[in-house]
């Protein structure tokens, strides 16, 4: 496998990925987009513009390319080099910098490849990176392993909605006991946050509407049942229609006032608040 790695001068994450390839004997060519590789990166970017992710601080490096597949940022690059496409879903492009790595999704990948997933987390921790992971509660077994090995510095749990809507919101069949098991683990992480995006739901009759304050109350109730606590740091976040992938959701007006949601959520989670 011949890999081209696009880097930026002084990018410590790029060095870690290059080191990984050297350890594995993977041959690669480096193109530093701020130095000799500038023209090559320009040509790559021109040909693959739509596949290159931009975070708030611009294009995230490194980017690896094998002539067919592109993987961007440290986590996704290492995962692909280690296990090919098996770990797709566990990693997306991270946007945190310095020693922090995010874009790591415990629920996003196939739990059959948990060991490969954990290997990448161990590798990153071994390189003194701090990891911010996310979960929707699915794959609680993998979450338990992450916890037991101390692989997460921050865990963010996105509780999608109330029990009766969870599968609908996730877009796949969800075992609610899996979600409750994850909720039971969340307080054991060194730093954690639970949040719910007030998302649109495609209702049984096909109509689209946001989660209601009553449904958010039931979500807070689910969190309480799963975790055994009604005093968790629980944040509510407005959905941003313009960033939605579903074109139907993009037509929605954003929710302006989240206070009714917060009031209802506090019935079951007394510290519920609104994320700015």
């Amino acid at each position: 496998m011949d890999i081209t790695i696009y880097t930026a001068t002084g990018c410590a994450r790029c060095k870690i990925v290059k080191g990984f390839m050297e350890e594995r004997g993977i041959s690669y060519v480096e193109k530093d987009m701020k130095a000799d590789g500038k023209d090559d990166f320009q040509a790559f970017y021109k040909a693959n513009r739509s596949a290159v992710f931009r975070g708030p601080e611009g294009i995230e490096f490194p980017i690896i390319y094998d002539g067919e597949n592109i993987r961007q940022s440290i986590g996704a690059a290492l995962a692909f080099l280690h296990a090919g496409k098996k770990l797709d879903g566990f990693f997306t492009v991270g946007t945190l910098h310095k020693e922090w790595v995010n874009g790591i999704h415990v629920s996003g990948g196939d739990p059959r490849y948990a060991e490969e997933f954990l290997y990448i987390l161990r590798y990153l921790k071994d390189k003194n990176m701090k990891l911010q992971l996310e979960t929707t509660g699915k794959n609680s077994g993998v979450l338990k392993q992450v916890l037991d090995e101390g692989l997460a510095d921050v865990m963010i749990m996105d509780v999608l909605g109330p029990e009766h809507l969870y599968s609908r919101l996730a877009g796949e069949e969800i075992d609610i006991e899996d979600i409750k098991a994850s909720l039971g683990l969340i307080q054991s992480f060194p730093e954690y946050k639970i949040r719910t995006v007030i998302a649109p739901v495609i209702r049984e009759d096909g109509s689209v509407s946001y989660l209601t304050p009553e449904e958010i109350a039931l979500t807070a109730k689910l969190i309480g049942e799963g975790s055994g606590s009604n005093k968790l740091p629980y944040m509510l976040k407005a959905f941003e229609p313009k960033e939605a992938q579903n074109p139907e959701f993009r037509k929605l007006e954003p929710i302006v006032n989240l206070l009714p949601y917060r009031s209802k959520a506090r019935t079951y989670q007394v510290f519920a608040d609104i994320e700015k």
Partner: protein
Amino acid sequence: MSNKKSKDELNFRDYIFYFEEHTWAKIEDGKVKVGITDYAQDQLGDIIFIQLPEVGAEFQKGDEFGQAESAKTVSQLYMPIGGKIIETNETLENDPELVNNSPYDEGWMIVIEPNDLKEVDSLLTKDLYIKLLK
């Protein structure tokens, strides 16, 4: 790697007109050539891609006609006056860095057939544009 220039190091030409959205307009034989200012290219950093409109497309003053992309950011390009695109700088497709190196000459972007040449009167002079940046 390009390092940002101080305001005093930036180059602003006389005899061209400046739009507050950081494009410039230069009248040549009744047509108007458009590009971005030295300030705009400096803010972008090394440009890696420029998207320009098709010849024949028509825009009003202030419309977005394309975008310039660097590793750091994406910047929309705005029409300083209204008109029809009659030429684009195709060289920028393979050499977008010309905009960094020569924003007022080789790095020009489009030529327009103006709807009303008098629209340039609403644009800024060099001194007013520099004042806007301060």
